[in-house]
């Protein structure tokens, strides 16, 4: 299984760090990518991850109202929706892409989000693009 | 030869017109039967032109069927479906076939009908249309100046809707239609009599009631649901709540609808400047004779 987490440096990325420091266990199949803010997320980034064989893409932004740049996480949510729309148009399950909001001091929420995504894509099966690249 | 409608109106008598909706088929008999049934209950009958943008038997063809039955038609002609070439040609054709009254209309947008994908025309609007047809009649020329061997004989009508907005502009629009060539005006169905009277006082203030024949429109209601539908769904219609309540509380709504329509006609006739009544009994045409009779407007004058 290949998961990609596109994380905001202020919350999501910090939470992964904290999860590590606290020795919390979660799937090793997840590749964590740091964004300055989820406001930097582009629809293209999500699609690129999918094209490169990700079975699931998780965008991790700050809690709504807590964005360091005010609206970055809200914009990101719209782009995630747009990416889901494109996934649907080209015949891929839009559920392979999700966004979660959490705070830097909530590592367990990050762990939970990864586990939820893992269970979900396992149920759906691997992305057809993952097979292509294997 | 002057149209019967024109004769009645110029004689100063209260005119009566009514509406016949052509069928959604090639069956002329529907129109013929209605014409026979309605003969004598009005001075002339409007043949609607693909109303609400539904494809129907053409208004000119329906008008000819009426003529064959000795019933005078008012052919409605919308700007939605024809450019100025077709419009002038149809006017010549109508006149050649003996049709004397043409009602100039913008027409309902095609999005209401069964040809929603259609491209509309609107080469001219109803005011431009009046200008075209008046020029043909009065100057014996088509638009642009080419001479007609024989000018059409036409009595030109237009619509007015005192219930559309902006209200203050409605009398201005009437004045423009008059300036463009309207000889008579048929109004939208009147339920909000107060607003109609306010509009009429503006009409009189401009002296327009002496220059054009205003024929007040009425539509009998079959049920309170119809009234609600018109209030909520039909743009440019006002149906006051007291009318809806009256229909709702009626023991026999259909009878009540007719009674109310008759009352309205009696009242509208008393308004200065109203020269006629137009009965739009949509899909209920058979009731026209009884409505006109109970309103005290029978028999129709022979002029």
């Amino acid at each position, binding site marked *: 299984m290949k998961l990609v987490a596109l994380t905001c440096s202020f919350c999501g990325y910090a939470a992964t760090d904290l999860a590590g420091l606290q020795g919390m266990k979660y799937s090793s199949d997840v590749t964590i990518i740091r964004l300055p803010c989820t406001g930097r997320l*582009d*629809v*293209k980034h999500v*699609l*690129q991850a*999918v*094209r490169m064989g990700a079975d699931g893409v998780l965008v991790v932004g700050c809690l709504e109202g807590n964005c360091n740049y005010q609206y970055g996480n809200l914009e990101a949510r719209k782009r995630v929706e747009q990416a889901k729309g*494109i996934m649907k*148009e*080209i*015949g*891929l399950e839009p559920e392979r892409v999700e966004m979660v909001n959490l705070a830097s001091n909530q590592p367990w929420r990050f762990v939970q989000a990864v586990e939820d995504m893992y269970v979900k894509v396992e149920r759906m099966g691997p992305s*057809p*693009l993952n097979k*292509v690249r294997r | 030869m002057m149209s019967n409608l024109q004769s009645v109106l110029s004689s100063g008598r209260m005119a009566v017109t009514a509406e016949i909706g052509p069928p959604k088929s090639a069956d002329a008999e529907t129109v013929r039967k209605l014409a026979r049934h309605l003969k004598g209950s009005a001075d002339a009958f409007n043949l609607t032109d693909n109303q609400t943008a539904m494809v129907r038997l053409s208004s000119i063809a329906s008008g000819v069927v009426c003529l064959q039955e000795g019933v005078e038609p008012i052919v409605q002609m919308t*700007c*939605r479906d024809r450019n*100025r070439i077709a419009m002038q040609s149809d006017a010549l054709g109508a006149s050649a076939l003996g049709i004397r009254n043409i009602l100039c209309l*913008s*027409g*309902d*947008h095609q*999005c*209401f009908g069964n040809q929603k994908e259609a491209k*509309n025309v*609107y*080469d*001219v*609007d*109803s*005011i*431009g249309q009046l*200008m*075209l047809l008046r020029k043909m009649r009065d100057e014996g020329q088509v*638009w642009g100046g080419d001479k007609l061997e024989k000018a059409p004989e036409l009595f030109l009508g237009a*619509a*007015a*809707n005192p*219930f*559309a*907005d*902006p209200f203050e*502009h409605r009398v*201005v*629009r009437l*004045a*423009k239609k008059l*300036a*463009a060539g309207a000889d008579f005006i048929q109004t*939208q169905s009147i339920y909000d009599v107060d607003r109609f009277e306010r509009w009429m006082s503006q009409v009189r203030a401009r002296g327009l009631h002496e220059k054009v024949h205003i024929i007040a429109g009425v539509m009998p209601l079959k049920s309170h649901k119809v009234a609600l539908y018109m209030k909520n769904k039909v*743009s*440019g*219609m006002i149906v006051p709540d007291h009318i809806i309540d009256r229909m709702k509380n009626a023991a026999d709504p259909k009878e009540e609808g007719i009674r109310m329509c008759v009352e309205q006609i009696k009242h509208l006739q008393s308004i200065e400047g109203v020269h006629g009544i137009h009965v739009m009994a949509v899909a209920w045409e058979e009731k026209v004779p009884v409505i006109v009779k109970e309103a005290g407007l029978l028999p129709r004058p022979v002029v």
Partner: protein
Amino acid sequence: MIIAEQKPIPRIVEMLEGHKSMLVVGCRSCVAICLAGGEKEVSILSEALRIESDLKGNGWQVDEVTLERACEKEWVGEMREKVSGHDAIISLACGVGAQVMQELYPDVRVLPGLDTSNMGAPEEQGIYLEKCGGCGDCVLHLTGGICPIARCSKSLLNGPCGGSQNGKCEIDPDVPCGWDQIYHSLERIGRLDLMEVPIPPKDWRRSRSGGPRKIVRKEAVLTPEEKSARGAR
């Protein structure tokens, strides 16, 4: 500006049947502003097409380029090297840009990735309204600065029809009545007198009805001698 929107991806994919190597071409002018065909949209569509190709095993080569202005030959000419080797151009420029591309690259099939809609303006971010009917004979001085051709559903010239109610058009309660807007604009300017003047049937020869339009600015056109002296095309 020109307002356009992207066709659904499955429609674009249908058009690509039989092609192997495509260049997605965007434009940084109008269609970038209406978020239909700028650099970002080019990259997203390209990525989606690459996924499509991987999913179906089409083996497509999808490349991208975004021009400064796709409606001018000078700019479109600059992508010559990029175009070579491709058997299709997917234009994310407006219909004008797509045609200029086809004209400059007559051997490559140009496919429209956008549906070009109208001449309009952004009302707010993400909302674009048609403003100009392009009739070739502007009447805005008579209509309070609001175009009756574009903003009345029936392109009426003499005021609102009987379907105008509460400022809305009969076609849809979400569509403002253009003539209601004109009326209130003239009211604000103090020129309601203009609503009283009947406007005769319009001369549509300068509109699309007169055939494809061509405007020549004599003082700007170069003579053959001037062209050769200046090395102009």
